[in-house]
């Protein structure tokens, strides 16, 4: 059985941490990232017993991996 990761979340989220949170690789394509984000978010949804803090971390992880300043994505 793997040993659990130590400590809390990092102060500034790195790509590496974001990839670990979503369970993907750092250079996974966008659609896989979105798929993983959806899956992990469902497991941690606040309405289903999750916490808002974790949900925000998961969202942040998706933003970090997809590159926050990526143009061409609609804001809606």
């Amino acid at each position, binding site marked *: 059985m793997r040993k659990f990761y130590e400590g*809390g979340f990092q102060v500034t989220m790195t790509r590496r941490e974001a990839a670990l949170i979503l369970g993907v690789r750092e250079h996974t394509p966008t659609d896989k990232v979105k798929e993983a984000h959806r899956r992990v978010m469902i497991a941690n949804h606040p309405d289903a017993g999750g916490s808002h803090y974790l949900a925000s971390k998961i969202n942040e992880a998706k933003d970090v991996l997809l590159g926050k300043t990526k143009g061409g994505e609609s804001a809606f």
Partner: protein
Amino acid sequence: MAAKILANLIVMGGGILARAVVQAYRQALTNASKNGVAQEAIQNTIRRASKAMSEQEARQILGVTEETPWEEIVRKYDTLFENNAKNGSFYLQSKVHRAKECLEAVHQSKGQGPQGSSSSSTPS
């Protein structure tokens, strides 16, 4: 006659110089390995990782407050742990586990206080 002495001096001098250069190079290597960028990164991660989770972050991760009873904390932990085991990531599972560990320690230390209720919380 003088040429022989001179030759000796040059050979000895050359040998001493060569040894000094080799020693200096080895010292420079160890210095670099101690102070290089890679070493700094390793030291940073060690310093960060040695910071155990704070109680506040643990409560945020599990979504509980200071008044939340221990049984509810354990229930939230079980739900989150199971959900992340099925559909989440191992990393998130670890954080949930560490959060519960942290709050458990707080709970044990509080249990020494006026309450004194010996609730051995071993989740079966």
